[in-house]
């Protein structure tokens, strides 16, 4: 498959429904530091992919690019056949404007390491605010849906509670419900259990495992919890220095990694 690499000087390839996420020669630099080097990777609809690798290897940057919290330095990203960082004007690709970003961003949701619940709203309002303000869902409908989601994350009794009164695990479950309320097609999980006390980790992981198994949500997950990676994903990508070193199904990566970098990394995190 050949696609253009430089936005603006080639006829863009047509959308390919085969892929939910497509990175094409993506480069991301912060000043002098190159975080991603001509990264290519594809994710199928409904696929659950985990990114592992040492910190600073660019995993989180991939999620932040997909969430449009960062812009690519060069290369293109597509989500569900639509350009994310660029948009088409005539037969050229130009950097996306706010309207285009809002259009494509609808398909993507994200759960953060630090939850980032809005402290000025109660739990219910945290979940309903975006559907009401961004999608124009009537408030009573949004609330009914929010209560269903709270039921699912087993926090139905906390709807009127203030986020600061919840434990870290509960806050993260609310954040998951909040992301799902927008009905994204792609859900990005950025080290979602790293900030939790050890005893709260498994509850959140179980919830995410259920969500992964139920829906046809495309999941992209960055984690340091290898067991969780193994449980949740169809495919594992091992990153190092902004590039994919190795990829495969979790069984293969975790039991018989072929690459020395992967072996070293797994040894380090598993302490084996």
């Amino acid at each position, binding site marked *: 498959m050949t696609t253009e690499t430089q936005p603006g000087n080639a006829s863009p390839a047509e959308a390919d429904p085969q892929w939910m996420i497509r990175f094409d020669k993506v480069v991301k630099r912060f000043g002098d530091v190159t975080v991603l080097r001509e990264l290519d990777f594809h994710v199928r609809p409904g696929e659950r992919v985990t990114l592992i690798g040492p910190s600073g290897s660019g995993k989180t940057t991939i999620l932040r690019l997909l969430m449009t919290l960062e812009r690519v330095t060069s290369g293109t990203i597509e989500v569900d056949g639509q350009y994310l960082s660029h948009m088409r004007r005539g037969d050229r690709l130009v950097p996306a404007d706010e309207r285009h970003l809002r259009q494509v961003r*609808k398909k993507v949701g994200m759960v*953060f390491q630090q939850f*980032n619940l*809005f402290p000025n709203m109660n739990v219910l309002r945290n979940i309903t*605010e975006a559907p009401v303000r961004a999608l124009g869902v009537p408030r009573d409908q949004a609330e009914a849906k929010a209560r269903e989601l709270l039921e699912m994350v087993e926090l139905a009794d906390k709807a009127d509670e203030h986020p600061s009164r919840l434990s870290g695990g509960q806050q993260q479950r609310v954040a998951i419900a909040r992301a799902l309320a927008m009905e994204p097609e792609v859900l990005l999980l950025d080290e979602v259990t790293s900030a939790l006390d050890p005893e709260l980790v498994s509850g959140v992981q179980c919830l995410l495992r259920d969500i992964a198994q139920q829906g046809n949500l495309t999941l992209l997950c960055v984690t340091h919890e290898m067991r969780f990676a193994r449980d949740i994903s169809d495919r594992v990508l091992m990153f190092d220095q902004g590039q994919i070193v190795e990829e495969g199904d979790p069984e293969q990566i975790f039991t018989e990694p072929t690459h020395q970098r992967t072996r070293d990394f797994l040894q380090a995190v598993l302490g084996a």
Partner: protein
Amino acid sequence: MIWDWDWTLQILPDLLTQGLLVTVQATLGGAVLAFVLGLFLALLRRSRRAYISRPVGAVTEFIRSTPLLVQLFVVYYVLPDFGVSMTALTTGIIGLGVHYACYTAEVYRAGIDGVPKGQWEAAVALNLPRHWIWLSVVLPQAVRRSLPALGNYLVAIFKESPQLSVITVVDVMGLARELGSERFRYLEPITIAGLFFLLIAIPASILIRRMERRLDH
């Protein structure tokens, strides 16, 4: 000089009703204007368009660098030459309000900067429209952070309000001076006026400190 109790009791009602009423009007009017205008100044100063943020920055700097007294004189004695005339009290309220808006703008700016980056990112991730990010996520948190400092400015405006007497506003202080000039005795009226300020400012400060502590936790 001996404290004259008879006269004290005679002037107390006037100072308490007329004088204090004007002081309270000037303070509250000035504060409301300062708090609202300050928020707009803070937002305009953050604008990405330089032709908006630069002039706003320059004007606030200018107002912060000149005395309130001079500004009051200019507004009251110079503006009427250009066809703008208002009552002394209105002029005073606008003068206080605009002057302190340039300070509260800084308070709001700090409050906005203090909202964690993660809040913005979560709001973007939820695809909230830009104006709703401001209205429902950032500003409520920023204003909450700003409340104690705004409270301090409320007290400051209250204490500075006697300056309005130079543009003929008859507040507590103006009235005290008038009463004093009738008998050439200033001890009683000025002392009473001072006590009023003390009696209101001290509980207000305590309240603000309490609010600060509640917001901290």
